[in-house]
């Protein structure tokens, strides 16, 4: 089985966000594998271990993305590919990323592609379905279970809390939802082995793409922080009175009930 994982490098969830010069301030921030992509990597490893084959983790990013790719290799992926756009592109959107990924994937004969359901920074959830459409293969998003028999797949999809049991066929793209599995931590031997595993670096040129082919369709014109929430009122007195006061405040002052 020829398995590909789409992985994005993102801010650690612990990070507070600050802005400098109109941009998100990245100085000193910790970066991680997008948490949903950890589920994707774990699932890919499990499918490979059960069915045989190879897991390749692909990321569109810059030099620093190598670190997260190495982590994926340490978890157990076989190969990593960095598509480094740093020198070619200044700006990109989901159209850009999906186009680059699909150009890379189009002649790879992938049986299974696993992405995250959403990146916790950009937050659009577009890249998976876009890539599937560009490759003209079926997709199922927000999955919590994947069973593959031959070229058939049975997938459980989370739909706002309900579950759909879906039957489809390979080649297939799925996006991982929380609950799909329990991602492993890289082991020490895993980390050692990862150093020797192949990590290829490509640029747009290698994919026969020109800047114009991937030019973004949308543009960010401003980034700002939400107004800081002031700590409110902690009620005092007898519990029963606090509860009465709270209900009253919500009903007559805040008018939300």
């Amino acid at each position, binding site marked *: 089985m020829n398995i590909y994982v789409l992985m994005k490098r993102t*801010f650690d*969830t*612990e990070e*507070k*966000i600050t*802005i400098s010069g109109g941009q*998100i301030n990245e100085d000193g921030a910790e970066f991680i594998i997008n*948490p949903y992509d950890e589920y994707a990597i774990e699932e890919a490893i499990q499918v490979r271990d059960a069915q045989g084959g190879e897991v390749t983790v692909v990321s569109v990013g810059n030099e620093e993305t190598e670190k997260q790719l190495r982590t994926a290799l340490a978890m157990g992926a076989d190969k990593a590919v960095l598509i480094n756009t740093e020198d070619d592109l200044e700006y990109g959107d989901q*159209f850009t990323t*999906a186009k680059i990924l699909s150009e890379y994937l189009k002649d790879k004969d992938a049986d299974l592609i696993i992405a995250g359901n959403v990146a*916790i*920074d950009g*937050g659009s959830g*577009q890249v998976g*379905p*876009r890539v599937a*459409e*560009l490759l003209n293969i*079926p997709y199922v*998003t*927000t999955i919590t279970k994947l069973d593959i028999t031959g070229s058939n797949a*049975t997938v459980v999809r989370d*739909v*706002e*809390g*309900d*579950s*759909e*049991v*879906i*039957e*489809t066929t390979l080649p297939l793209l799925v996006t991982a*939802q*929380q*609950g799909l599995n329990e991602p492993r931590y890289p082991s020490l031997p895993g980390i050692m082995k990862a150093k020797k595993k192949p990590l290829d670096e490509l640029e747009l040129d290698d994919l026969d793409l020109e800047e114009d082919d991937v*030019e*973004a*369709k*949308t*543009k*960010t*014109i401003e*980034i*700002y*922080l*939400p107004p800081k*929430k002031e*700590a*409110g*009122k*902690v009620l005092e007195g007898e*519990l*029963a009175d*606090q*509860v009465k006061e*709270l*209900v009253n405040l919500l009903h007559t002052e*805040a008018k*939300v*009930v």
Partner: protein
Amino acid sequence: MARKIIVLGEVRDGSLRNVSFEAVAAAKTASEGGEVVGVLIGDSVNALSGELIHYGADRVITVENEKLKQYTPDGYSQALMAVIDAESPEGLIFGHTSLGKDLAPKVAAKLNSGLISDVTGLEIAGGNLVFTRPIYSGKAFEKKIVTDGLVFATIRPNNISPLEKDESRTGEASSLSVDIKDLRTIIKEVVRKASEGVDLSEAKVIIAGGRGVKSEEGFEPLNELAKVLNGAVGASRGACDADYCDYSLQIGQTGKVVTPDLYIACGISGAIQHLAGMSNSKVIVAINKDPEANIFKVADYGIVGDLFEVVPLLTEEFRKILVNA
């Protein structure tokens, strides 16, 4: 610039979802005086055209077909592409729901178009149509414009006000027959798990439980309160990880991001990942026995106490005033 905007109306259990009315309102703004065309897709949706028009659509096109009884990306995209071919719109607006999130990127890829997802506001500013959306799970916001091609957006439920319903509004309702070809994904079964009634992403009131709830049964008082307030129940990852509830209830940076009018956090400490998912709620109430808990820093109102005492009292008190109201 006047635009023709297509709005995909979403039907659930036989009725239109609120977010569809909000999408019509968003489309009105985006159309800049142009036309708002509602589209309804399903096996039996013709009867709902009128309501979409009452909420502001200028006309409605329905696509009915047996094979569209359930949502599939292939089925719905075929239906929608047929409408788009017939109408040549300048823009599209869907709800940022499970369906919208799944379908919109596929349609955008087909149309070689951009897509601005999870929009919480839009306005005309400086001659541009400007969309606002959260990034970093609500820790920051960005404003975006379309620089090339279609205006295509999905809007987050509960953030853009629908227009006033006007039952005297009229508009043309037409239907388009579309031949739906092979569907590559087939839904074999739907297992209903979501708490009956109110959907977490659309709920006006959310009662959320954390590790402090201590067990699956511990959620019972929260369910009671939710019922009285016609709200939905959510959870922290702590509660999900401990198996007190399903992951579909998780709120936060790796769960749902919600913006209800009222969020009541019970036995939740207020970790940064949880706050990312709920701190843009209109009013936040925290109930926690630890006065130092971080959740009090974002709460409008706090009660320091045992949730198993406080929540039932709250339920009683709300019941009283809501009966009187």
